[in-house]
């Protein structure tokens, strides 16, 4: 039970996971690139295709299961986390993938999102964050920046947004990563790590909605500005970024600070070294909060802390109880406690209990 993924290498390709359904996302939507990356990752995992289950809630992202040739279920709005938990508990051998968006998981499904993070079933969550409601045509979402004008906020939103990373980590998520939909290589690498993590892995994909919120992530993703505004974190490596790889992150009494290598005698040794395995949430939370223009957005695996999964805890107990319970069948159970035998009554009209 400890390793629910069959690591035996199978000869699978991307084509094994492409469905025959027409993909109906808008041309230019970031979802297309995410789909291709997932199709690239599945054959690499050594899992037979029939053991994948892709589930979703409602929203543009949630059409995803129809486009994968796996078992799949398109659920109801916000509830994919509950579907995924039920599937994983019922059959821990399955590789369960949950596709959701910022409306689906941060608003209507906010409750389920925090609870799946807390419970830690081995479910891989891809959270497409485009900071807008796309399918309903352009209302603001819980991640829309405060003040942004949308169809339902003509004067700009009045609400402070969620940061999915800090929300997840606050809810005790064991694995959190962030990627951009413009970088297939990065997505593939991080999705692989998420899949191999035994526990709930949450990957926030900064995804572009070309119709209703175009270029919302452009500071982080555009060719001109991305090098200065994103940092890809790798375990054990110093936190360096910038076009010339001459910038880094240090920690001082005020928190994280962007520094330039060579200035004020700062060398690589002075920089923070990324440790996603650190149990303490402090630095991981600070990394999630970093956003341009003051900081680069943190990408890659930010947090990866192993702890027992929900299904392991449940099924280990089930196995234990099977070994140790005196009750071997429901017949035994029905006969526990206070029972009494009634002999045939001489009076004929005995009660006919079913």
């Amino acid at each position, binding site marked *: 039970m400890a390793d629910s993924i069959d690591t035996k290498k199978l000869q699978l390709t991307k084509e094994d996971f492409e469905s025959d359904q027409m993909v109906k996302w808008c041309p230019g939507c970031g979802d297309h690139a995410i789909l291709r990356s997932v199709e690239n990752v599945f054959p690499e995992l050594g899992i037979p295709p029939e053991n994948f289950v892709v589930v979703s809630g409602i929203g543009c992202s949630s059409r995803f299961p129809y486009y994968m040739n796996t078992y799949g279920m398109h659920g109801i709005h916000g509830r994919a986390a509950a*579907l995924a938990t039920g599937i994983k508990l019922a*059959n821990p051998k399955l590789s369960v993938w949950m596709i959701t968006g910022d409306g689906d998981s941060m608003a209507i499904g906010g409750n389920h999102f925090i609870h799946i993070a807390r419970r830690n079933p081995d479910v891989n969550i891809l959270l497409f964050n485009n900071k807008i409601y796309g399918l309903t045509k352009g209302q603001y979402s819980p991640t829309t920046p405060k003040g942004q004008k949308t169809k339902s906020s003509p004067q700009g939103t009045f609400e402070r947004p969620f940061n999915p990373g800090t929300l997840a980590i606050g809810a005790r998520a064991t694995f959190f990563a962030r990627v951009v939909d413009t970088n297939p290589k990065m997505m593939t690498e991080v999705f692989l790590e998420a899949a191999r993590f035994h526990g709930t892995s949450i990957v926030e994909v900064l995804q572009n909605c070309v119709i209703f919120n175009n270029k919302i992530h452009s500071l982080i993703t555009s060719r001109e500005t991305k090098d200065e505004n994103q940092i890809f974190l790798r375990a054990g490596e110093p936190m360096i970024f910038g076009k010339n790889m001459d910038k880094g992150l240090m920690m001082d009494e005020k928190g994280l600070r962007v520094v330039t290598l060579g200035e004020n005698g700062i060398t690589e040794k002075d920089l923070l070294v990324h440790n996603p395995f650190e149990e303490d949430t402090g630095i991981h939370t600070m990394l999630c909060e970093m956003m341009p223009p003051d900081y680069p957005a943190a990408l890659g695996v930010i947090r990866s802390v192993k702890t027992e999964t929900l299904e392991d805890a449940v099924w280990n107990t089930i196995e234990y109880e099977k070994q140790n319970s005196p009750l071997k069948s429901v017949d035994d159970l029905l*006969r526990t406690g206070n029972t009494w035998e009634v002999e045939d009554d001489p009076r004929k009209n005995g009660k006919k209990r079913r």
Partner: protein
Amino acid sequence: MVSKKDKVVELENAVVRFAGDSGDGMQLTGSLFSDSTAFAGNDFATFPDYPAEIRAPQGTVAGVSGFQIHFGSSDIHTSGDLADVLVAMNPASLKANMKWITHNAIIIVDTDAFTEKNLIKAGYETNPLKDGTLSGHSVIEAPITTLTREAVKNLNIDNKSAQKSKNMFALGMVFYMFNRDYKKTFEFFEQKFKTNPIVIRANKQVLTAGYNYADTIEVFTRTYKIIPAPLTKGLYRNVTGNLATSWGLLAAAERSGRKLFLGSYPITPASEILQELSKHKQFNAIAFQAEDEIAGIVSSIGSSFAGAMAVTSTSGPGLSLKSEAIGLAVMTELPLVIVNVQRGGPSTGLPTKSEQSDLMQALYGRNGEAPVIVLAAQSSADCFYSAYEAAKLAMEHMTPVILLTDGSLANGSEVFKIPNVADLPPIKPPIVKANDPDYKPYKRDPEKLSRPWALPGTKGLRHRIGGLEKEDVTGNVSQDPLNHQRMSEIREEKVERVANFIPDLEVLGEQEGDVLVVGWGGTYGVMLTAIEEMRKEGQKISLAHFKHIKPLPKNTGEVLKRFKKILVCEINLGQFVNHLRMMFPGIVFDQYNKIQGLPFMVSELKEKFNEYLND
């Protein structure tokens, strides 16, 4: 002096009600009396009556906890209308229960509790033991608290602890009154307080003291005996409705070879199902306590997709929250049992009281055309068979099933003849074999119209389902107008065809005639008792009582047409009667409704039926 033996009166049945403060241990007292009743071979049914608050202010009427048992030498179908014997441990419990006792009841009171302070708390201006309030009743005044303290003096325990067993003194007195053996009760003490020998001794001594006190002072002018009931040969036990529901589900899971998955959120009066199933992991049963009602049902739907026998349990407000997800289970055509233990509504309503007011919600409370099977359990013990049948129908017909029970059935208990699981009807879910070349997600069984159940992890059956409308046969997403009409009709027809797999409606009494009374679900016991009594008294009146609400038994219309007048009785404002009016527009239905958070009483039904007969 008259010896005890000479003054034993044989009774056919009796109703005893134990009442005291929430902390007085009345539920335990009642259940110990039930155990001894079983040992005496009587048939019985019980009902607890306790406040919605966990610890309402001590000594007040709001804080009174009661337990009623109806036992007899013939079939017992109800926990009894009015008590023949009331044990009142304080003034508040006397006050709260005066309306639930017969006009000439025996009332046992603890006089030590009738202090001025307690009388005021109970809202008595004068002492009811002295002001004539109880005239007509036989009042047995016993200083129970003092005598309890005396009884354990040798054990050197403090007064407060000593007084805790005063309920056992009262129980001892009632045991004497009904000539009961207390051997079983002693065995219980030895089990329950294994680690605390002093408590075992204290309880035994107090119980014996109560018994001997009743004997010695000859407070009872007579004692009573009820001969064993003519139960058929077999092994019996006592079950509450919630326990029976849980066990019926476990039996169905075992019989079908499926894991059991319950996704549930605690809610009164359904929580015991979650608690009971959480105890039985050895049977591959997962009880998942979800973060809310919606996650409860949706996790169950997930487990159903993955191949488990899926259940969610709730009560009214929770059923409201689950509506959208029930629609998902209808659209995906996955098996799912939704147990709704009805309580008083709307909104939070009367959480600890019983009602039948969720029927329309069960039938129609969803967006779209969303038919489901609706069953209603008829008694606490029947909850076992109803839960089993609900699971069988859900899995074999690939559809959600709503099982309606109610607070009275859930908390009430009755005698249950223990079946062998192997004797229950087999359950054969339509699980698809690996690589089945003919598999299509929505290709249907020609007879049942059920779709096949293809489980993730099986080779060659990969498919996608979801809440969007499905194309017939392939299950692909479809917006086609004619396909939607066809699929809507198929989903309805699939549920209607279940009528071919359920028993016909039975009529008790004349099979045709002047008057038929109709009921459904939890009113079975009380309606049956009323009709049986009236028929013994020579009245011509028949009963048809429904367990299958959707679909209705196939012969329903034909049965109803055989009677000149039909009276539909329900604990609501008339939901089933309106459903019948819609289903059978040519038939005239009269109705009798009660909505007080209380079950029908046999006496009020008989009065109403007599009036109706003469109308």
